[in-house]
């Protein structure tokens, strides 16, 4: 596991703590999409939407629900659309 993914794991754990304490700002669906994106990404690489869609956590999610959650996560600053020419790529934002 890379250093960035350790930070991501800590971040996921803190999200679960927020959820347990009723302080969460993400719905369960958004959290699952975020977890899936975190698992699919490597260091500073972006991840394709299709790869996130194939992740086991979100595999049973309907397409509209998945894309709504993806859009919401970008709006909330958890994911960032990759600056490259290719659309459908996202960066998982890690604490700096």
């Amino acid at each position, binding site marked *: 596991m890379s250093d960035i*993914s350790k930070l991501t794991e*800590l971040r996921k754990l*803190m999200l679960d703590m927020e959820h347990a304490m009723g302080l969460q700002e993400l719905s369960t669906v958004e959290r699952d999409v975020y977890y899936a994106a975190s698992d699919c990404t490597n260091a500073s690489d972006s991840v394709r939407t299709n790869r996130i869609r194939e*992740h086991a956590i979100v595999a049973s999610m309907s397409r509209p629900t998945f894309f709504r959650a993806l859009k919401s996560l970008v709006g909330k600053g958890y994911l960032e*659309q990759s600056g490259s020419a290719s659309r459908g790529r996202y960066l998982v*934002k890690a604490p*700096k």
Partner: protein
Amino acid sequence: MKKLAVEATAVSLFYLAASFIAFAVVMPVQQSLFPGLENRASLLFLPHGVKVLSAWLLGWRSSIALLPGVLAVFAYFAGWGVFAPHRMIAVLAAVLVPAAVFYLSKRIGWDLFPKVGRRPRWASIMIVGLVISVVSSVLSNLAYGNSPQNYIAYLIGDFFGLFFLCLIMMFAFRALRSMAVPTDR
């Protein structure tokens, strides 16, 4: 090897910072509120949180990563006496027990280590943190020959140390998120 050195530096620095807060900030307040408690038993022992979270993230590598920090804290209080048998038992308990408990829980079918596709459960980490605290404090207090009152003080300190460290990190991550500028779509 380089990766292990980076992990040891980071984990030990966090351990030293958490120990500084526990002994230089929390302890004076605690001593004025509970003068009857034994000096070293902090009721908010943040280093326990560092031990638990590093063992969760790094597994056995956390034992090596924690060793410099734990030894430095023991040496600060005991000087060369850190190498006395009872203190070495306490040092070994501090660095080995956290990872051992996580591996033991994995052996009995409760695998909590981070893994692709697995949702981390904060409550489970707290429960394992409590078990680590019980085992560590029993071993340490047996080595030191402390009174039962201090067992309870260590358990309370470890539990609240892990809880408040998680709480501090949770709010730190929230603050970082709120500082992030959302992308315009």
